[in-house]
């Protein structure tokens, strides 16, 4: 059943690409333009998606999608995503050092690491990052409210 969904999604994406690419300008004189390659690739994708869906239909035993039940693990995964988003939003204000240490510590503790391991690991990682990026490679990383 999942194959069917995956196949239909791919086919849908392919179809959408083809439809969008049709409106791209052409070189004039009947010659194609930027639209032709997306149409080719999108069309092929749509075809393959349908093939996948068709192949999936043969093995369908039930209409259930077979997604795993929502448990604590999904929370962990969600936390990972949320942490990245939070990082993006807060880093201009709080700076690289604070935010990265915070992110590391938060995720390590959330995944069950004891503080006595998590804290030194987080600080060591930030120190190494600082050394590698700012010192060795001279890449500017966002400074925090106190300049570092």
């Amino acid at each position, binding site marked *: 059943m999942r194959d069917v969904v995956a196949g239909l999604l791919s086919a849908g994406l392919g179809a959408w690409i083809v439809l969008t690419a049709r409106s791209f300008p052409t070189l004039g004189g009947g010659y194609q333009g930027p639209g032709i*390659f997306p149409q080719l690739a*999108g069309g092929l*994708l749509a075809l393959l998606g349908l093939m996948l869906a068709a*192949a999936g239909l043969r093995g369908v035993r039930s209409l259930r999608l077979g997604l795993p039940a929502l448990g604590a693990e999904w929370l962990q995964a969600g*936390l990972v995503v949320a942490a990245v988003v939070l990082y993006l939003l807060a880093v201009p204000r709080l700076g690289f050092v604070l935010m990265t240490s915070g992110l590391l510590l938060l*995720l390590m503790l959330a995944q069950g690491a004891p503080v006595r*391991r*998590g804290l030194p690991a987080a600080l060591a*990682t930030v120190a190494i990052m600082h050394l590698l990026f700012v010192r060795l490679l001279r890449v500017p990383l966002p400074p925090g409210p106190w300049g570092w």
Partner: protein
Amino acid sequence: MEAVLQGLVLLAQPKVLLVVFLSAIYGLFVGAIPGLTATMAAALLVPFTFFLDPLSALVAIITMEAMAIFAGDIPAALVRIPGTPSSAAYTEDSYELTKQGKGEVVLGVDLICSAVGGIMGAVAFIVAAPLLVLLALHFTSFEYFWMAVLGLSGAALIASGSPLRGAISVLFGLLLSMVGIDITLGYPRFTFGSVDLLGGINFIPAMIGLFGVSEVIRQALAPRREQALAAVRTERVFHGIYALLRRHKVQVVRGGVVGTYIGALPGTGADIAAWLSVAVARRFSKEPGKFGKGSIEPVIEAGTSNNAALGAAWIPALVFGIPGDTITAIVIGVLMMKGLRPGPILFEQQAELLNGLRAMFIFANVLMIPLGLLAIRLSSRLVRMPRNILMPVILAFSIVGSYAISNNPFDVVVMLVMGIIGYVMEAHGFPLGPVVLGLVLGRLVEENFMISMIKAQWDPIAFFTRPASLVLAMLTLAAWLVPLAGFVQRKGAPVAPPVSTAGK
């Protein structure tokens, strides 16, 4: 030969040596930890290489990949979990041998075979690349187009999962590369009015997301359980190794040759080479029944093969700009970012750089022996590294690495989105390697397609008239006919169950 020596001189700068040393440690570390692949390691390494000079950048990748592919065999032998997918083909035998108390023999012979294989691949590169450059000088846009398509096809067909899924992955990667300003008219495609998307989807954060962040998400959803560790007496690692190697010298040579050949083929890399070598070893073995129960033969043959494939993969990558495997796809991206286009011009204008690379291929494999020995000694601690410390660190490096490329938060968004997409794709059996290939080669394919079409005045027959084009086109079509015939014959029944590996 003197090219290698000249290259060694280039490598002797302290900065380069530091890079080599750090990359080697990094590669051993990543290889020895199950769940971290060499491709992911390369993806995370790229932000650093971005700021290095071309020689240091490429040298870092060469060293890292050589170490990682060897180090992947360590957890395979100790806890029956391959550290990188290319070790999966002989994990069973390594582990069984270790249980029989021969762990140090396995690791010792594997170390030497990896180094030997790596050198064989390196020699292939040194010898074959200049010869192929002569061929490449005659290539026009038609040939490059078919070569790129052949490479993409190879990756799609042979990646894990069914060829159908592989093809969908490749197309997805190709379509991603079409976001942004197009090559022909400068028309913004699929940008939805976003200024950031006008520049296209930067392949570095996309790749970091696909391989790095998706693994972090995967680990969060399915934490690995602690495994019982088999004991290894490291003082006896090289005990009796000469006799063993002499007895199995055929396997070593055969593994190296097969590995070099597979690596040099566009799109197929170390993991394919390893699987094929195990099959070949079984076919020619005097004791095929022992395979899977603790035979040293697949370890020797495939251990040589996967390292040989690494060096050979650089042949099509540097000569034609067509990646021999996922890591060289990343290398091509890195080269293009530094304004160095693969191809005959690179060999002509950057002879020094290439000498440095040739020397590095040899040096990395020589260096592997002492450093690999160190890794074997530290193996138990490496393999048991706690995930809840490691994964946040990887995430942090992913974020900072993606951001550091152009100081643009949008790249981090790309990383996250690709990470989620990558997780979902792999969970449904879609291989990720072809996506990267599609993303990296997309511009090249389209550019050559459009140039060819314009040259031929939009007559598609021109794609088949030149002799070299015809040969490449026929190869591509033949490659696709096999699975297509299989599909029709089975009347569309599903082919392979979803396999979760990220390439190597």
